[in-house]
């Protein structure tokens, strides 16, 4: 992919990366949104949606609680959508490789957020005297510094992830040794299992809602059977 092809994807990754924590937390950073948009930029929103659904199921396992460390799904979703759309949604292994690349990106991106927070903390320490003196310039400046640094973080990460992952994914798909049916079903089943286990824990912990979960499962399986 040329720089001009990667640029709009990296810009989208920057916006989604910023949305994840800093601004405006409208959840455009959720994989179901970011991956669909990433796929749409490369002309395949349906491919983006498919990998977005897989990643969304996996993302249901994580919650962005306060200072805890968690994967960053904004840049990961965009990267996954772009990689899957660029290798071709019908190719054997495409979904598995795109999901793998996205999870690695989510992990690395989560670590980059820790570094960013340390960087903002260091900047806050430098300007502490001014902030303690009630300087508007220092308070607003620190906020803008954090927002800009986060935007740049998302841009650089998505740019690097897509630039490195697309050729790698294309090469892997060329030598993929498993049938598409098996590898797709394995990836989707894995994501569904992660979501199912996690949702059971979150929605039924300490409450009597387990029967509602099971009732929903009966309705869902009934719908699938009719389909």
């Amino acid at each position, binding site marked *: 992919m040329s720089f001009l092809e990667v640029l709009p994807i990296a810009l989208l990754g920057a916006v989604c990366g910023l949305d994840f924590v800093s*601004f*405006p*937390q*409208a959840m455009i950073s959720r994989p*179901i949104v970011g991956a*669909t948009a990433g796929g749409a930029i490369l002309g395949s*929103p349906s491919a*983006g949606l498919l990998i977005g*659904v*897989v990643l*969304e*199921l*996996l993302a*249901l*396992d*994580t*919650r*962005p609680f*306060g200072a805890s460390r968690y994967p960053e799904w904004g840049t990961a979703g965009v990267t996954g959508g772009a990689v899957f759309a660029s290798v071709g949604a019908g190719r054997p*292994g495409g979904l*598995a490789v795109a*999901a*793998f690349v996205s*999870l690695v990106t989510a992990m690395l991106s989560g670590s980059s957020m820790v570094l960013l*927070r*340390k960087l903002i903390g260091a900047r*806050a*320490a430098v300007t502490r005297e001014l902030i303690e003196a*009630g300087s*508007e310039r220092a*308070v607003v400046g620190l*906020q803008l*510094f*954090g*927002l800009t640094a986060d935007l740049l973080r998302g841009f650089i990460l998505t740019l690097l992830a897509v630039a490195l992952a697309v050729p790698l994914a294309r090469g*892997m798909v060329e030598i993929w*040794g498993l049938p598409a049916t098996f*590898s797709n*079903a*394995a990836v*989707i*089943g894995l994501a*569904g*299992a*992660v*979501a*199912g*286990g*996690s949702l*059971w824990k*979150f*929605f039924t912990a300490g*409450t009597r*809602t387990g029967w509602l*979960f099971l*009732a*929903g499962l009966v309705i*869902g399986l009934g*719908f699938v059977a009719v*389909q």
Partner: protein
Amino acid sequence: MTRIHVPFMTRLVTWLRLFAVQGSWNYEILLGNGIGFCAEPALRLLPGGRGGDKYRRALARQSRYFNAHPYLAAVAVGALTRAELEEVDPAKIERFRTALAGPLGSVGDRLVWSGWLPLCSLLALGAYGVGGSAGLVVALFLIVYNVGHVALRAWGLKVGFSQGTEVAKSLSTPLLRRSPEWIDRAGALLAGIAVPTAVERAVGIGGEVSAVAIGAVLIGGVVLARIPNTSVGWRLALGILSIIVLYAVLA
């Protein structure tokens, strides 16, 4: 204590700044600087105006260490700003600030991160499962989620501004106390419907392959649900996926 009227434009700018309240989140003062950043426009109404002595003292106070859920930080910004404008004793403001942080964090985490967000996510997955297009699924998720999100920030600022240091009462309203329970019920029901339907459509073939995938979801889900640690599933998925990718490439 003087009653102060906060002009509409000042409230609007404060509300808009709330969307960036976590812009400088860091391990030293967490959300602190963000609270100062959001309160700043209203603090200009203090006697002496922007840059005055009272303004600077209040801004410094509000920019210290603080922790809360980002959406419910609106309650803190409204209440603390009103306390500053009413020139409440600084020591009392400090105590009030410390007392606010805990409840705003736990209520928000429970209501939004463990409730509203997964519920909206499941709604989108369910829409996908029953055949929704890319545009419909994304639009449904973003609109429903943000109706709750934007309303919560607006409500938080409104009750904060109107009740000041008495705002704790608003956090114990039946609506806020019971909402997580209702969301849990809706989420549990929707989870059961959305996960198998989304998996079936994603596999896209039907028949035995879909049945095997859904069977794997059920068995895997039961196993993972028995692991007490949270956030272990996606790591496990990455490990298994790495093995599948390695095998498929090297085989």
